């Protein structure tokens, strides 16, 4: 066991030097291990917990559908964050842009325009994207015109969006006779079709995957994508090359905000079929974990979103069978974010784990 590890490790270091998938997977693994340790310290059984997560996601049709339902918004928010990162922008305002997108979709979705199904859905989606993009552009403009720190601006705008939507839902947009802060139901012509009749997962999952592929193409194969990358990697060199920095940054934030808006669109047109106050359990911030796991690659976001979807769907099962709170999954995701950005730390930790070549299994075998 040890000799084969010795041969694998140098090659692992080499591929870690290049960053990317190896780091993400290593970070995932280490996060799972650390979380297992935390669970054990709190008095729970880590193996039982992880088994519950996996059964939760794959053990039943309901679980599998739930996994896809959870993955959809995460793919959108992860993609939004990833795209902004290409321009070297940290878009923490994804949560707010998502709410604005939801608002946009709800406004058009609840309106009776006499449109056939396809057009109504598209119109509502477009509305959501525009609202999200416009809200994202605010951060871009603040950054370009005023030099504001986009991280703080994003967080502030999140709160502002939450309050604006909250105000509207308790007032002008409140559904007649409803005691809960929510809008009217979205008209059937504007609803996103569900894949399985019984579960909430909609065709939005395909839209999400298509969006990832489209963005990957956009970044690599279009001039605008190239310019955004240049601005993200070396602003001064881009400027010297005649690239308009302000335009690139604002476009990046618009696209990022629009994608985030799609997460809100999915929630309103597909999942809830209405805009419900505070519908997000933190999809925006979890998008950061998805982006981290995806190693900043749009196609990777698909897989990372699915993995996080597994974690979230599994966590609900976890809560049912073991009583461990759902927030445990948030802890894992936070650790992923940290470890992905610390390749040096991973190497250090991996050297320690060298002593236990099989990892957890080896330790467990020793105890047995």
């Amino acid at each position, binding site marked *: 066991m040890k000799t084969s590890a010795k041969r694998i490790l140098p090659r692992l270091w080499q591929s870690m030097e290049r960053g990317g998938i190896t780091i993400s997977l290593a970070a995932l693994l280490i996060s799972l291990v650390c979380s297992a340790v935390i669970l054990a310290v*709190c008095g729970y059984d880590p193996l039982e917990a992880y088994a519950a997560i996996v059964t939760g996601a794959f053990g039943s049709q309901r679980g599998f559908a739930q996994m896809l339902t959870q993955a959809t918004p995460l793919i959108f928010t992860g993609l939004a964050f990833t795209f902004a990162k290409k321009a070297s922008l*940290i878009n*923490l305002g994804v949560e707010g842009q998502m709410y604005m997108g939801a608002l946009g979709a709800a406004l058009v979705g609840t309106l009776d325009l006499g449109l056939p199904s396809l057009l109504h859905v598209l119109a509502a989606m477009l509305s959501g994207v525009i609202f999200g993009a416009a809200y994202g552009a605010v951060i871009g403009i*603040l950054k370009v*015109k*005023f*030099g*504001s*720190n986009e*991280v*703080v*601006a994003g*967080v*502030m*705008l*999140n*709160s*502002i969006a939450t*309050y*604006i939507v*909250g*105000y509207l839902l*308790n*007032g002008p947009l409140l559904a007649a006779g409803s005691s809960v802060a929510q809008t009217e139901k979205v008209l059937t012509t504007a609803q996103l079709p569900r894949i399985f009749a019984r579960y909430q997962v909609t065709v939005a999952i395909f839209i999400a995957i298509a969006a990832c592929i489209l963005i990957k193409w956009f970044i690599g194969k279009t001039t605008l994508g190239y310019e955004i990358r240049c601005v993200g990697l070396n602003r001064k060199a881009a400027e010297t090359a005649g690239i308009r920095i302000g335009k690139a940054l604002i476009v990046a934030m618009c696209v990022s905000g629009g994608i985030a808006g799609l997460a809100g669109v999915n929630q309103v047109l597909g999942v809830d079929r209405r805009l419900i106050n505070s519908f997000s359990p933190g999809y925006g*911030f979890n998008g*950061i*974990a998805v982006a*981290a796991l995806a190693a900043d690659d749009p196609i990777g976001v698909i897989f990372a979103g699915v993995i996080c979807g597994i974690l979230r769907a599994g966590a609900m099962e976890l809560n049912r069978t073991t009583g461990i*709170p759902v*927030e*445990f999954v*948030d*802890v894992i*995701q*936070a*650790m992923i*974010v*940290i470890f992905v*950005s*610390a390749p*040096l*730390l991973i190497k*250090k930790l991996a050297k320690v784990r060298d002593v236990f070549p099989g990892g957890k299994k080896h330790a467990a075998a020793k105890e047995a």
Partner: protein
Amino acid sequence: MQIILTYLIPILGSTVYMATPLIFAGVGGAFSVRGGVMALGLESMLMCGAFCGVAGSFYTGSTAVGFLCGILGGTLIALLHAILCVRYRVNQVISGVGLNLLATAATTLMMQVIWNNKGSSEMVASVESMIGGPIPILNVQSFNFFVMLAVVALGWVTLFRTRYGLRLRMVGENPKAASAVGLRVHALKYSGVLICGALAGYGGAFLSLDQLNMFVRGMTAGRGYIAVAIVILGRYNPVNIVACALLFGFCDAVQIYLQGQGVPAQLIQMLPYLVTLIVLAVGVKRIQPPAGVGKHETD
């Protein structure tokens, strides 16, 4: 005149009170940034301080122990931040944001474990306020008012008059030069972040022990990010930071008073965040952070 006495003085008193956690976090943030490490993890330090403060008070029944635990909590998460940023050269923004996420999740988790309630903890011992004293504005304050004043004064003196402060600032401006001169760059950077954690931890404990007597899920509500804005606007100087913090404290205080007046709650609650945004836009342009923020002594 009556109006002023009835409304203005309580609002001013409230302003100072609401600004206090921001001041603690802000002065701490100044130390961190002066040493060259961005303070985006302030939210996590406040959160951990708030949680540990309540936990400490819960288990021992003493608010004093609570405050100590708050300092400890903030310092511990600051240590994580320092290890990641200084030793392992993690992107400081990611480290800060990641730790903020971790703190939010971990504290909620711990609340479930300790009190079986994810929304809030149990009530704990309260801190006495100084009602009935000679100065009306101080009516709303507790002994922490004086702690805050001491922190600001000590913070300023330490940064600009002591040997430690000079060395810390040098490290933050130019870590290569500092290293070439023989300063222990890593140790100084760590110290800046740890002081930040300790102060922000105390500020968090103030939030939970002094203001609310309990820990509520996500109770720092973005104050850590507002503190980041305050640190920048205050030009990394404790005295200016107080002024900026008072501005936001004022918004917070006004917001609470206006809520009872019939204006829609949500629009008023937006006020501190909106003001932060506007000030960030308009006020930040010419401010230069220490030149060595985010840099290391070897590249």
